[in-house]
């Protein structure tokens, strides 16, 4: 049963991801990526990662979608160019994918209890966290105590994101006109296409 659901969810995910790539109306893309997150959340629940599922649903389908929609309201929602395949990106992606597949060949099979990842650090969390921290949810105890420092970093990451967003678009008013630094002093402004643009080496 769970295998069927698992396979079906992954198939839906693939279709959605493909639609995200193909769809040129960005509002639709925003909704599709929200759906993608919800499907992921469902998959995480199947995979016993309930905390992650909860977060993905709240963040991926909620906050991210709101942010993308808010941006689209400011920048317009039509992707202009008809998408045509590009050779170099396709090559890079295929190589990356092939390398990944090669890497999975010796990976421990999905879901086995004797996989090395489940043998080393995790058992102590499962056996001892109850008495060591008194918190039944192991994810919470690892997140907030054993690896609490990571979570402090994470809190700082979103604080950094806020600082970045405020620096960029804090005031309702448009920022003063951006100049090419050269205009200001009347020094030559002619900037013909620079040789070496984007590294011609």
């Amino acid at each position, binding site marked *: 049963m769970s295998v069927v659901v698992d396979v079906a969810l*992954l198939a839906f995910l693939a279709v959605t991801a493909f639609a995200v*790539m193909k769809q040129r109306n960005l509002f639709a893309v925003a909704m599709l990526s929200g759906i993608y997150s919800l499907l992921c959340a469902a998959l995480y629940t199947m995979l016993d990662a309930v905390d992650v599922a909860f977060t993905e649903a709240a963040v991926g389908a909620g906050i991210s979608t709101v942010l993308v929609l808010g941006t689209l309201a400011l920048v317009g929602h039509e992707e202009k160019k008809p998408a045509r395949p590009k050779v170099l990106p396709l090559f890079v992606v295929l190589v990356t994918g092939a390398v990944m597949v090669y890497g999975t060949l010796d990976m421990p099979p999905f879901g086995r209890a004797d996989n090395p990842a489940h043998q080393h650090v995790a058992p102590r969390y499962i056996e001892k966290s109850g008495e060591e921290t008194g918190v039944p949810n192991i994810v919470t105890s690892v997140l907030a105590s054993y690896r609490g420092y990571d979570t402090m970093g994470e809190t700082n990451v979103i604080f950094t994101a806020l600082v970045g967003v405020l620096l960029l*678009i804090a005031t309702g008013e448009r920022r003063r006109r951006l100049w090419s630094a050269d205009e200001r002093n009347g020094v030559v*402004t002619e900037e013909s296409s620079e040789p070496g643009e984007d590294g011609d080496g």
Partner: protein
Amino acid sequence: MKILGLYNYWIVIGLMMIGFYTMISRGNLVKKLVGLSVFQTSVMILYISMGKILGGTAPILIEGRENVVYTNPIPSVLILTAIVVGVATLAVGLALVVRIKEAYGTIEEDEIHEQDDVM
């Protein structure tokens, strides 16, 4: 049996490739960021798949029961952090896109390059 055991990973790799391709091949700046999200989310699925133990249960201790198999909590913990990082990156990226639109009047990569070359 081995192939079936890896099936999950391969689909996820496919998802990753779609996201990565969307990100590096599209010219629209918002689309690139959505591609990035798909790419990152797919990596998260990969992590969560690694943590799953078939027949296990969510890693929340059940009192008074022995021999319960719990799924590995570590990937969950890492991915919770990664989700936050993902949305943080998305927010900064979108703020940049808003500013680029204001400065250039477009969010299409090739049109931006054209303008910079003329300048």
